[in-house]
């Protein structure tokens, strides 16, 4: 813990430096980078130590406020998420300084860095808190620093709107958590997680608690239909912030769900699992479908976060089902798949956002349809982005594949459970996951192909040049991590397995046997993942040999007899996904505007535009009607008093017949 907290202290110090030295010294940004990276290294070290089997530790502080001691602890579950926080956090800190260096309009760059530091610290504290009060404090600090980062560009009305939507969403979630802890703590007589775990919860109470947690953490995690804030806020924020939010912050919602399940071991009910599984499936499919039709690169990535949260949620659901139906192997598989995919997604999603940010900085636009041919001008960014894309689609030999493979294992083996256990029906998830994967492939083929390949579609792309090392270093680092975790599945699974076992309520000893099955295959899987690049390299060499001393010419692309292609003849992103959109017309939520001589499509968020905003307008109408009661007429105000008095007197007579009244 000391290691962890000294790390957090360093990050905080960096934030403070960035805040105070802003403008005064050119080096403030660099100082922040150094301190943040150092702090993240320390914190990550602490997490790794726990993951390597150092027994979990706790520290407590006797706070003079309601609700007992404040406790922080670092167990396998916390460590897995904390590790992701520190890795991505460091990358984002480095990237952010480079990214905002170009900001001249704002003098609040230092403040933004400070909030980044605060956000990292807060997230680390969220995943390590072991009592309600410190948890909620860290939770709010996280949410608020994220808000202030989102509204960095607050001179734009759109950004302010996005910020407000996000803040409202997160605050509503926090209220649900407030209810959760109030109900739970009130029953257990303490806000310490350990004591809450010990509380005897009978009847429907655990399900109520789970429901509250599902809403409270769900808003943060952003699965359908609680995702509405996510595609608004993430694109509005500066890129490294989007990476932090999309990559890490939404995972704290997943962490919260897992933690709550960990704290309700005996009481897990099947409907929790089915709900989670279905929600996961829905977010997965809808998320990727909605992502496909986006024109804004960052918005597209944001929708993919919804998709991946869906995949993670499927894991959580499967694990919960495993617990509910008493199948520990399933539980461990599901939960560890969820944890592993959370970590993976943190890596490649932030990598992709960095790529998007680099593109935006280099070209000045995030409009997919206006880009193209960047592969030549920004080769490193392109390779990094390509690796990220392959990883998020879940292709071997990258880390995304390992996580999904684990989840598939769980889903398939659910079907292998003895007959007449309902958990077998979870296997349908496998087909859904396959669909999600294939659609994601289509979507990222579109992004990679349209943005980076072919010809530039607008001046934006033509004079773009590769971004600087401050941008590239984090991207390269994350890309390398994606590859390494993919090539060494042992490490990847080993990272998540203890956490999965912990959530499933297993002692580490038994965890080793459980899901042994999946572990066993790992060496072969490792062989396989190594085989892919090996074979590819061999073939590349072969090809090189064949082409040696052969005529290798360059000519115009064969355009089927037509004149040479012009950039305007290229397929656009919209046309690329047109067949899929046609197939899923009903759900994608694409507003088509046809005008003589123009044809535009406008992606809209079904939930936000068709459900929430109308509902809010209804509230406004009601309030507008009620407002007439405050009309300024004194007589009627006095009538209100009279009416109140009479109503209460009626109550008096109604209650007056009760006992204890002498005639």
């Amino acid at each position: 813990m000391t290691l962890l907290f000294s790390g957090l202290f360093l990050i905080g110090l960096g934030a403070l430096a960035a805040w105070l030295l802003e403008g005064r010294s050119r080096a403030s940004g660099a100082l922040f980078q150094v301190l943040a990276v150092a702090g993240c290294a320390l914190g990550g070290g602490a997490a790794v130590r726990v993951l390597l089997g150092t027994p979990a530790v706790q520290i407590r502080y006797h706070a003079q406020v309601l609700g007992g001691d404040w406790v922080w602890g670092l167990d396998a579950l916390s460590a897995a998420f904390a590790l992701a926080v520190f890795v991505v956090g460091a990358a984002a800190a480095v990237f952010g300084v480079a990214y905002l260096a170009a900001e001249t309009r704002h003098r609040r760059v230092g403040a933004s860095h400070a909030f980044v530091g605060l956000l990292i610290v807060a997230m680390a504290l969220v995943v390590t808190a072991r009592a309600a009060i410190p948890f909620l404090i860290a939770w709010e600090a996280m949410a608020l620093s994220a808000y202030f980062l989102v509204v960095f560009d607050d001179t734009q009305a759109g950004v302010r709107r996005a910020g407000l939507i996000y803040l409202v969403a997160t605050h509503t979630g926090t209220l649900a958590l407030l209810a959760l802890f109030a109900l739970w703590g009130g029953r257990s007589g303490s806000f310490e997680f350990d004591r809450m775990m010990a509380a005897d919860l009978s009847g429907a109470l655990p399900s109520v608690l789970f429901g509250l947690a599902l809403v409270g953490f769900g808003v943060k995690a952003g699965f359908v239909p609680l995702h509405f804030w996510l595609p608004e806020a993430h694109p509005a924020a500066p890129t490294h912030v989007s990476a932090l939010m999309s990559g890490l912050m939404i995972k704290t919602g997943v962490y919260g769900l897992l933690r709550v399940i960990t704290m309700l071991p005996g009481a897990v009910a099947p409907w929790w699992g089915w709900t989670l599984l279905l929600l996961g499936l829905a977010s997965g499919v809808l998320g990727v479908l909605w992502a496909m039709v986006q024109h804004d690169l960052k918005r597209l990535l944001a929708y993919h976060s919804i998709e991946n949260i869906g995949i993670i949620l499927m894991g959580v659901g499967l694990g919960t089902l495993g617990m509910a139906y008493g199948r520990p192997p399933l539980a461990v598989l599901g939960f560890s798949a969820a944890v592993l995919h959370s970590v993976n997604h943190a890596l490649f999603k932030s990598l992709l956002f960095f790529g998007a940010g680099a593109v935006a900085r280099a070209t000045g636009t995030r409009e997919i349809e206006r880009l193209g041919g960047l592969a030549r001008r920004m080769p490193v960014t392109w390779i990094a982005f390509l690796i990220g894309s392959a990883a998020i689609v879940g292709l071997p030999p990258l880390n995304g594949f390992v996580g999904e493979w684990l989840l598939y294992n769980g889903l398939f083996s659910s079907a292998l459970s003895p007959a007449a256990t309902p958990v077998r029906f979870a296997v349908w998830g496998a087909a859904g996951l396959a669909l999600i994967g294939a659609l994601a492939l289509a979507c990222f083929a579109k992004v990679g192909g349209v943005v980076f390949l072919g010809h530039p579609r607008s001046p934006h792309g033509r004079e773009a040049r590769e971004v600087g090392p401050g941008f590239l270093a984090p991207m390269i680092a994350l890309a390398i991590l994606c590859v390494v975790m993919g090539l060494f599945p042992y490490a990847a699974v080993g990272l998540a397995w203890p956490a999965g076992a912990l959530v499933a309520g297993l002692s580490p000893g038994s965890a080793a046997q459980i899901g042994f099955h999946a572990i066993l295959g790992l060496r072969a899987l490792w062989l396989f993942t190594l085989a892919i690049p090996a074979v590819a390299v061999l073939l590349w060499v072969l090809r090189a040999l064949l082409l040696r001393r052969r005529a290798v010419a360059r000519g115009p692309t064969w355009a089927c007899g037509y004149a040479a292609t012009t950039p305007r003849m290229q397929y656009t992103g919209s046309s690329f996904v047109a067949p899929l959109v046609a197939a899923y017309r009903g759900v994608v939520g694409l507003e088509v505007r046809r005008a003589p001589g123009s044809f535009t499509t406008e992606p809209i968020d079904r939930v936000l535009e068709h459900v929430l905003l109308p509902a809010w307008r209804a509230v406004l109408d009601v309030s507008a009607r009620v407002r007439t009661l405050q009309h300024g007429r004194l007589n009627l105000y006095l009538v209100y008093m009279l009416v109140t008095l009479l109503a209460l007197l009626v109550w008096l007579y109604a209650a007056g017949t009760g006992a204890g009244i002498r005639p």
Partner: protein
Amino acid sequence: MSSALASLAVVLLVAPVLPGLIARTKAILTGRRGQPVLQLYSDLGRLLRKGAVYGTATTWMFALAPVVVLATVLCAALLLPLDGRAALIRFSGDAVAFAYVLALGRMALVLGAMDTGSSFEAMGASREATVASFAEPALFLALVVLAVLTQSLSLSGMLGSRLVPGVEGFRMAAAAPFALVAVTLFIVLLAETARVPVDDPATHLELTMIHEVMILDHSGPDLAFLLYAGAVKLALFGSILVGVVVPRASLAPWLALGLLVGGLVVVAVLIGVIESVTARLRLTRVPQLLVAAATLAALGVILVLR
């Protein structure tokens, strides 16, 4: 092990025959002489000896695509129990790996097509992605049925298991699911290997193509790699089909291998027959076909989960 290696070698060797067989079958049924069965070998040989031409727009992505496609197909081959017993590499959930490694190849191919900057290749790429997004769920549903029937998460178990038709200990109840799975897998095969009614490799109008138009710009060794990869992919899906229909775990290795090759020939002829008797579906109808296939598999899942 040795038998696995041997059968792998054989499959890789005979794979190029299959397209020839298909073409020949079609030719016969349509009363033409048609190209020789071994045509592809000579094509490959010639292409490998040629140089190559690259579009001005293209980058290394374009050149990388064929390599990755072939590599992924070869790696996928490592996961199939071609000898009917066990694959060279097998692990729990390798069925998933099989599908996803092929997906990696698809991604490379699609990106390679986009790299040309021509709308024709891009069009093919988009269609390829679309078709795949419908084929994958069908494939996985089929795998689920196999997994439940054979109580195994590994292709080696699913295809090499003893719990398949004709072997002792086989439950007759499983016949129906197996049949459904076989049909589904066959349709998936047609889709994955770009065959009528999903795609028509023999059409001469780029606008109607899917796979062919994607590789339109490739030449020389690159094209050779792609053609060979296509043939092997056909062989792989064929051998899955054979593995489902003809259990060979208990047979002698040489017999199992013979059965496999025979089975592949049958599959090829079958494809040829279908290509000559049915017309290519309109692109908008292709999803319906694949959804139908998925539905069959889903029916199988319901049967086995019941």
